[in-house]
C-alpha cells in the first residue's frame, strides 16, 4: 500500500499543538499586558477644547484645587468648573486673549465648553470623592501630580486593583486632611509619618472596605 500522506504530515499534530500553545500564550500575554487599564488608560492625554494648564494655575498662580473643583468635598463628583468660574479672573486677566475665546463665548452665550473626560470609572463603579478627600487621601494619589501638568493626563490606572492597593493598606496613602490639597507635600520623616498614619487608621476608625458593597451597588 503506498503512502497516502507525505512524510512531513507526521509532524503536523505536534506542530499544531505547539503552535496553538504558543499562540495562546502570546495572545494571553498580550491581553494581560495591553488590555489592562495600566496600559490602555495611563498616559491618555486628549486634546482639550481650551488649553487649560494646571501648572500655570495651581503651581504658578497658587489656586487651591477647590476653587474650581468646589463640589469635591461635598459630593461623589468632583466637578469641572463652570465658565463663570474662569471668568472670575479672566474678565480682567488676559481679557482679550484668543486662547480664551471659547470661555468668553460660553459665558456669553450659555453654550458649555465640551471638555473631554479623562478620568472615568465604569458605570457599575460608584466612587465618592467627598469621603476620600475629607479623610486624608490626597488628589495626587489617584490623579498624579496634576499641579505640574500642562495638559492633564491619566496618571494612574484607576483599575480595581489600584483601588484595592490602597484599601488594603490605607496607612500608606493617608495624610493629615489639611494637607490633602497640597499635592507637593512630602512627610519630613517618612517612617514617623508611616507610624502616625497607622495610628490614624486606628484613631479615625478608617474602615476602607474591601467588600463589594463599598463601590458596587
Amino acid at each position: 500500500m503506498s503512502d497516502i500522506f507525505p512524510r512531513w504530515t507526521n509532524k503536523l499534530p505536534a506542530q499544531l499543538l505547539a503552535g496553538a500553545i504558543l499562540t495562546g500564550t502570546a495572545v494571553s500575554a498580550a491581553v494581560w499586558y495591553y488590555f489592562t487599564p495600566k496600559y490602555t488608560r495611563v498616559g491618555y492625554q486628549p486634546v482639550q477644547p481650551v488649553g487649560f494648564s494646571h501648572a500655570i494655575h495651581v503651581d504658578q498662580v497658587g489656586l487651591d484645587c477647590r476653587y474650581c473643583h468646589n463640589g469635591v468635598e461635598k459630593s461623589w463628583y468632583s466637578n469641572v468648573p463652570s465658565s463663570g468660574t474662569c471668568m472670575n479672573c479672566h474678565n480682567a486677566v488676559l481679557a482679550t486673549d484668543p486662547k480664551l475665546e471659547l470661555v468668553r463665548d460660553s459665558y456669553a452665550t450659555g453654550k458649555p465648553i465640551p471638555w473631554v473626560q479623562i478620568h472615568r470609572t465604569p458605570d457599575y463603579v460608584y466612587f465618592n470623592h467627598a469621603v476620600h478627600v475629607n479623610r486624608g487621601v490626597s488628589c495626587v494619589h489617584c490623579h498624579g501630580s496634576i499641579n505640574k501638568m500642562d495638559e492633564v493626563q491619566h496618571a494612574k490606572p484607576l483599575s480595581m486593583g489600584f483601588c484595592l492597593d490602597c484599601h488594603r493598606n490605607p496607612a500608606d496613602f493617608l495624610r493629615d486632611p489639611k494637607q490633602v490639597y497640597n499635592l507637593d507635600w512630602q512627610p519630613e520623616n517618612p517612617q514617623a509619618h508611616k507610624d502616625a498614619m497607622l495610628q490614624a487608621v486606628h484613631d479615625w476608625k478608617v474602615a476602607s472596605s474591601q467588600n463589594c458593597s463599598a463601590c458596587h451597588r
Partner: protein
Amino acid sequence: MKTIPPSCPEPENGVRYWRGLDDLAGTPEFKEFLEREFPAGASEFTDPTSRRNFVKLMGASMALAGFGLTGCRRPEAKIQPFDRQPEGYVHGVAQHFATAFPTRSGAIPLVARQHDGRPVKVEGNDRHPDSASGTDPYTQATILDLYDPDRARRFAKAGNTVSREAAFDFLADLAKQSATAQGKGLAILAGTSTSPSRARLQAVLATKLPQARWFTHESVDFDIHRRGASLATGKAVAPRYRLENARVIVSLDCDFLGTEEESARYNRGYAKGRKVASANDSMNRLYVAEAVLSVTGSNADHRLRIPASQVLPLAAALAAEILPAGPARDACAGVPKPAGVDPKWISECAADLVAHKGRAAVLAGYSQPLAVHALAQALNGALEGFGKTVELHDEAGSAGAGLAELAAALNGGQVETLVILEGNPVYDAPVDLNWAVTQRKAKTVVRLGYHEDETSAKSDWLLPAAHYLESWGDARTSDGTLVPVQPLIEPLFGGLTAIEVLARIAGEPQVKPYDIVRTTFAGIAKSAVEDVWERFLYEGFLGDSAGRPVAATVDGAAVAKAVQAAPRVPAPSKDSLEVAFRRDSKVDDGRYANNGWLQEMPEPLTKIVWDNAALISRKTATDLGLINGEYVTLQAGGRTLRAPVWITPGTADNTLVLSLGYGRLLPGKVACFDGKNPVGFDAGAIRTAAAPWIVAGVKVAGSRAVHQFATTQSHWAMSGRPIVREANLGQFQKDPKFAKNFDLESHSSHIPMGTNGLPAQLYHTAYTERPETQKSAINQWGMSIDLSACTGCGACVIACQSENNVPIVGKDQVIRGREMHWLRIDRYFTGYKAGQRNKLVADEDQWKETWIDDPQVVNQPMMCQHCEKAPCESVCPVNATVHDEEGLNIMAYNRCVGTRYCSNNCAWKVRRFNFFDYNKRPNNLGDSSQGMSGELYKGPFARRNAADLELVRMAKNPEVTVRMRGVMEKCTFCTQRIESAKIARKVKAGASGDVQVTDADGLRTACQQACPAEAIVFGNQLDPAARVNQAKANPRDYTVLGFLDTQPRLTYLAKVRNPNPKMPDHREVPLSIEEYKQMYHGDPFAPHGAGHGAASEAGAGHGAAPAAGHETAPAAKGGAH
C-alpha cells in the same frame, strides 16, 4: 501607515472649537499636524518594501498608540459644565423639597427628592404636624406618572396640534366672551379638591361670571363622609378619625387601611394600637363587616362576611342597641335584621363598643349609602367619640351640582362651553347618562387632561395638564393645615395647572400659578413677609393653620329621616345576585391605568396583577356551576357586562365584587398596548347614577371560556408551617415568648444544641473564617418587621420599586413567575375545618375547599433576609454575591453570569432574575397571549422608541445600577442609602473616629420610610440606642425558617390578634395555629418544659429525649385525628 483620527463630532456650524493658534491660522503645517494623532512621525510608513521595517514600525505604533488604532480606547465622553453655576448646586448631591400630593379630600404632605434637577422619589414629610410620614402605594407610584411617555404633550384643537400661544389666545377670548355674557353658557366640570387657591378662584368666577355654573364629578366620591357627618350633626362638618385613641373600631364596609383616602394616616393610628412588647400592653380591637376581603378586613379581629346591601341593616341593628332612646333608635328598630347574621354577633359587638365609650370609633365606607354614614356618626356621638376618636372639622364642602345636573343642562342645550378640569367623565360617568354623546352637546369642549384619553377624544380643545411635581399649588390636609404643592421641575411638556386655566377663564391679571398661590397664601397667613412664605415652602406646611375640632351633637331626627329614606335593597339570592363596586387598590378609579408599577403591584388579597376580576365566593360559584376564571355575562337593568370570575376566600355569598378603573382602551400603551385589548374589563358598563355602588337583581350566566389570570402568589395556605406566627392576646400575655415555641429546632433532637442553649453552628459563616478582620466593629445592620403592625397595604413594595429601579415585566412574564419585586407581601389564608384534613391540595383546586369561606388572613413582607450564613453566597461560581463586613448580603451585578444557582438555593425565594432586558425592550405588558412571539424574546432586535426611552430613563434613581438581562438582583437593604449615611458621617468626622451611623443620622431604608404603620425598623445593631435593637428585644421576635440555621439579619415580630371572647365566632387560637396543631401534633401554647412541642415530652431534658419517643407520640395520640 497613516492613522486617520475620527472626524470631529462637533457641528460645523455654531461656535468653532479650535485647538490652537495654528488652527485658527489655518496653516497647511497645522492641517498636516492635525491629521496625525502622534506627530512624532512614528506612525509614518514610508518604505513599503521591507517587512522588517513594517514590524519595527508596528511595534513602535503599538508602543505609542495601542495598535495604532483609537478604537481600542473607550469612547470619548464629554463633560459639559454650566456657563454659570446655579447657586448652591452641587452635582451629585440630592436635593429635597417639600411638596404635597393633592387628593380628592385632602393632601398627602411629601418630601420629594431630586437628582440633577429631576425628581426621582417621594417620601412622607416627617415635619408635618400630622406626622404621618408614611405614604400609600398610590402616592409612591405617582413619580412614574410624571415620566409617562403616553402623557399629553401637546395643545390641540380638533385633533390638530396648535401652539401654546394659540391655546392661551383661545382662553383669553373665552374669558372676554364669558365676561360680556356674565358667564351664561359656561359650565365647568371639576373634581373635588381642598385647594384654597382653587376655592378662591371659584369664588372669583362666581362673582365675575355669576351665570357660569360649576359642576363636580368624582367617580369615587369621598365627600360622602362629610355629607354623612353634616347630616348627622346638623352642622357643616367633616369627620377626621383619630384611630390611635380608639380601643374598639368598627368598620362598616370601610376599607380605611386600603382604599379610603388618608389610608396612610389611618394605618399609622391603627398600628399604634397593635404593637405590644410586654404582657401589660393593651391592644385595640377591630370589627369589620364587608362583602369581599379588603386590607382592612384582612386585619380584623372579627370579620362579618355580608353582602354590601346588608351593611345598612347591620348598622341599624347595631344602632338599635347603642343609640339612646329617640327617633333615630326607633327608625333603626324598624329596619329588618340583616339576613344570615347571628344576632349574637351584633349584640356582643355593640356591648364591646359600649364598654369602651369614649374610646370607640365607627367608620362607614365610601361605597355605603348616606344612611350608613349618618348612622356611623350617630353611633360615634352616642359612644362619646366626638373630639376623641373622631374629630369634626368645619367644612362647607366644595361640591356644587353633579354630573346628572350637567347632563340635564347639556341635553337642554344650555351649555355653550364646557371646561373639564381633570377627571375622565367619558370613561367613568354612570352609564345611563350616556356621557360620550351627552358631552358633545356642548358647542365647545375644553379639556385639561393628563392623558389624551376617552374624554379628550370627545373634546375640542386639549390642554395638557401638569403633574403635581411640576406644578405650583396648594391644598389642605385633613386637619386643615395648609400645605404647598411645590414643583421640582419645570413642566416637561408645557403643561398647565387647573388654577392657571381657571384664572385665565376668569380673565384674572395673575395667571401664573406661583403668583396665584402666593396671593392666596398672603390671605391665609395674613402676612406678606417673605420669610413666612419661605418657611412655608421649606417645611412643607403652614404652622398653626390647622382647624380646631368643633363640638357637635347628634340630630336624631335627621338620622331617623335618612334611615327611613334609604332604599331597602333586598338580600341577594342565588337567582338575584348583587354586584358591589369598589375603588381599585391599584389603578384607583382608572386614573392610574397607565401606571405600570401599579398595574403590576399584586392586589393585596387576590395577588392578581394586570387584571381585574369579578370576585365571587366558593359557594356561589358552585351553586351557579362556575369554575375559577370562567367568563360570565352579568345582566343588570338591561345592560350586560362580560367579566371573568375569580373565586376568592372570604367573599360574601351571592355577591360579585368588581373593581373600577380597568378596561380602558385609550390612555396609553400600558393600559392597552394595541388599542384593542385593554387590561381588565370596564365594570362601569353596569354602573348607573341611581346605583353607583350596589346593584341588585343581577343575573349571571356562565360560558365555556376561561380567562387566564396572572397572580404572584397562587398558593393560599401556610399548611401548618410556622412562617407567620400568631397568637391571641391572652396567649401572648401568658407567654410573651410564644413565637419561639414554634421553632423546629426546639422540637427536634436532630439539631445539636450548643452550650449557650442555641443551636450549635451547623455551617460556617462568612465571619467564622476570619472573625477579627471580617466583622466590622462600627456598623452591623439589622431589620425587624412587626407583623402585628403590618397591615399589608403595599406601600413598601412600590417604594422599593421606585428607589431601586426595579423593572416591570408584564402579565405574560408574571404568569411564568418572573415578577421582579424585590420586596413582596406574602398573604396567607388560614382556615381549619374539622374533618377536612388534607391541606395539601393543588393550587388549581384550592377554590373548592370549604375552609376558604371564612378564613383569617396574615400578611408578611418578604425580602432578602441577609443571612449571616447565606445559602446563596456559597454557591455562586463567580463570587458575585458575598457577605460584607457589616452584615449585608451584597450583589455585584457586573460579576454575575446568570447561573441562578443562588436563587435555587434561597429558601425564601427572594432573589429575582432578569430573564430579559425589561428596560430596553418594548413589552406588550398587559397581554398574556403573546407567548413566545413577544417582543421581549426578540432581544436586541426589538428596541423601545428612543424618545420614550429618554423620558422613562428620567424616573430611574441614579444612585442604583439599572440592571440588564442575565443578572440576579435582590433587596440590598438600600445599600445606596447606607453608603450615603456612612459617607456623610465620615465626611463630618474628618480626622476623628466618630464614624458610627446611628438612628440620629436618619438612615432609613425605602420600605421603612414608606411604611405608614412603622412596621419596618432598620438600623445599626451596634448602636445600643437604635430602635432596631429594641425591636429585636421584643419577646415576639422570631426568625422565618429559623431551623435552617442561616441566622438572618431580618427577623419578624409575631402577630397578635385581639378577639373578643364573648363573640360567637371567637376562636381559642388563631386558625393558623389550628392548622399547625393538626400538622405537627403539638400545641405551641401548652407548657413546654425544655422547649419540646409534644406534651408527652414534658420535663425531659432537651438532648436526652430519644428520637424514637418523639416520633411515636402522634401514633400514641390516636384519637386526636
